């Protein structure tokens, strides 16, 4: 099984084809079913133990809404306090500008090797590729990210980047790329990565991280992790650069409490991850740590999502990945089929919003609207409502003009449904056609004659009407009862 490196923007168009290919990959589907099931079970158990879970969600939702409504204020406050503590703050309108800032900082630091901790935001801007083209060595140090970097792939899950890979595949990959003996033991494979990455940490000139939260009143930011690689990335090199989306800011230090209860439980089912590091400036004289601390505040389409209260909700996302694990669509096709940096329900919402619905018009439809994502979201994002809103946007735009017939069919249907007599008439008419439909081959012939039916039946069964309608059965039953 191979998942070639993907240029996300180029492949957004091919979602239906990607999805079909993934559905035929039984190994991938097996791995996904196992992994998403296990993580969601752990999440459920962790959440059950918190009596006030709904209260916590409500508080986080309100907190995010209040912050985003005055985002300019909190960002300015963050900037002022960060600068006061010796952090250098940069702003980037888009991905290109953010990449250019990191590249300039790397050049200023004379950095050859850069070590990175896991950051979806750096994936979003394509940072590694940009730096590599300029001749820097960029090394991913989170185990999952290291695996997919060696494989030349992209993450397929927000929290577990190599969720689609089996231990055998990883063993073979390490054997081929690192020249070590083939192994299928996660312990041994982890030890190999630890050994190799120690050398990289030791020689790195610059560490790059993301951030989970930025705190306005203190000018600090927090990084959560389990492995310790983010701590190494931000302790050993002389320069630390953090790329932070503008939506990550929260007002007060005390506001961390609610998110520290929600995020680890939702992401991995832990009551707390192994490490949280709160950065509030470069090292003091004579202490350990980087001499320079840089923060890059990234817009890249986020500000446009502030326009109304529904789309602002999408900016409240804390990237826990819980919606991926419960999504029946993600669970069947995995993250790569979406061909967007952010997969799953939240990806189907924010990718079209960040990159434009024309580009990502398939994604809002990659959902059954079952609502499981909304139920697990720790900050109460109404994902189905957002998906529906985006669907209507796609249909209004040029991308959906091919579905005129479907629209006409739904107009007829709504006409028939608008009164009991009309509905009865339609059913009787359909029932008259029943003997015709039951003849062998009739259905496929019908689909040929009526083109809209062909499109409809391409992925669905066409069911002829039943011999007796529900309404008739109901009437009979009532007559019998009385």
């Amino acid at each position, binding site marked *: 099984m191979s998942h070639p490196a993907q240029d996300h923007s180029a492949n957004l168009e091919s979602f239906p084809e990607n999805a079909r290919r993934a559905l035929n990959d039984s190994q991938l589907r097996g791995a996904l079913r196992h992994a998403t099931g296990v*993580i969601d079970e752990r999440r459920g158990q962790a959440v059950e133990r918190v009596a006030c879970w709904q209260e*916590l969600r409500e508080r986080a939702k309100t907190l995010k809404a209040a912050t985003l409504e005055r985002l*300019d204020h909190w960002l300015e406050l963050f900037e002022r306090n960060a600068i006061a503590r010796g952090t250098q703050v940069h702003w980037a309108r888009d991905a290109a500008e953010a990449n250019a800032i990191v590249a300039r900082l790397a050049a200023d630091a004379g950095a050859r090797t850069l070590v990175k901790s896991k950051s979806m935001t750096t994936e979003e801007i394509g940072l590694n590729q940009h730096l590599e083209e300029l001749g820097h060595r960029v090394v991913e140090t989170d185990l999952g990210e290291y695996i997919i970097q060696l494989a030349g792939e992209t993450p397929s899950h927000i929290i577990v980047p190599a969720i689609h890979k089996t231990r055998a595949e990883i063993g073979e990959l390490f054997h081929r790329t690192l020249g070590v003996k083939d192994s299928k033991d996660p312990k041994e494979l982890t030890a190999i*990565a630890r050994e190799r990455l120690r050398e990289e940490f030791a020689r790195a000139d610059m560490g790059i991280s993301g951030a989970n939260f930025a705190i306005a009143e203190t000018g600090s930011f927090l990084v959560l992790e*389990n492995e*310790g690689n983010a701590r190494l990335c931000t302790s050993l090199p002389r320069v630390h650069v953090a790329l932070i989306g503008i939506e990550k800011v929260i*007002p007060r230090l005390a506001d961390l409490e609610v998110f520290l209860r929600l995020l680890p439980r939702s992401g991995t089912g832990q009551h707390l991850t*192994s490490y949280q590091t*709160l950065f509030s400036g470069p090292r003091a004289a004579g202490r*350990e740590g980087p001499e320079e601390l840089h923060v890059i505040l990234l817009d890249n389409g986020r500000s446009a999502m502030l326009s109304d209260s529904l789309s602002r909700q999408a900016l409240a996302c804390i990237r826990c990945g819980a919606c991926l694990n419960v999504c029946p669509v993600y669970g069947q096709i995995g993250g790569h089929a979406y061909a967007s940096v952010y997969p799953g329900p939240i990806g189907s919402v924010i990718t079209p919003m960040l990159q434009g619905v024309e580009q990502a018009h398939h994604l809002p439809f990659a959902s059954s609207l079952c609502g499981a994502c909304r139920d697990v979201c720790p900050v109460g994002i109404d994902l189905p409502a957002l998906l529906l809103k985006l669907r209507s946007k796609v249909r209004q735009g040029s991308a959906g003009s091919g579905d005129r017939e479907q629209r006409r069919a739904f107009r007829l249907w709504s006409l028939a449904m608008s009164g009991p007599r009309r509905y009865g008439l339609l059913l009787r008419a359909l029932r008259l056609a029943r003997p015709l439909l039951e003849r062998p081959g009739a259905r496929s012939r019908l689909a040929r004659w009526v083109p809209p039916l062909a499109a409809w039946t391409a992925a669905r069964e066409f069911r002829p009407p039943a011999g007796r309608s529900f309404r008739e059965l109901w009437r009979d039953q009532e007559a019998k009862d009385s």
Partner: protein
Amino acid sequence: MSARDECLSRIRGQLAGLSSFTELPQGPTPGGCPDLDPREKRLALFSERLQASGGQLHHLHSDQAVAERLAQLVRELGLTRIARSDATCLDPLIVTAGDVEWICASSSVKEVPQRKSLFEAHAGLSSAQLGIAETGTLVLDSRVERHRLASLVPPVHLVVLDAAKVVADLGEALAHFERDELPPTLTLITGPSRTADIELELVVGVHGPRDLHVLLLDPRG
């Protein structure tokens, strides 16, 4: 227009139509355990949560008991090279710990010999500034002690924690640093370094320590 001004003006433009604003939530965050008294209850929860997350707790009742347990761990785990932080409270422990080569934390690990000895250390020894009962967490303040690397690079982390410094929950720990000024780096540690990136199988000690021993000094207990 600078990138800064343009980002801010885009944000203001989008929010310009807003006429009513959501209030920031006030008051304590739900889910904490602020009434965790007496202290025995608090220490019991700290101990339970620390061990649930894979750490080991040594509940000790005198300075001498701490020194003896440290010497015992040094012997049992065969630790002959230990990176230590610069906390002076560790000085008396070191005298009695046995035959150990001590590597003292330095502000720079860029010099090769310094780094090499740190990377080859069998364990790191430091104290911690706070403990959090709710989660079994240790809090390390980079202003007080040079323990960023000693607590991270070697495969074993030995920590001395004063029982009087164990607070009830995350809220209390954060409030502690609101009153005080925040250090450049505040690190929260809950159990050993871990990963589940390969088929979700738990492996400890991926980049940080695989063993975490907390020597809880509780003279009143």
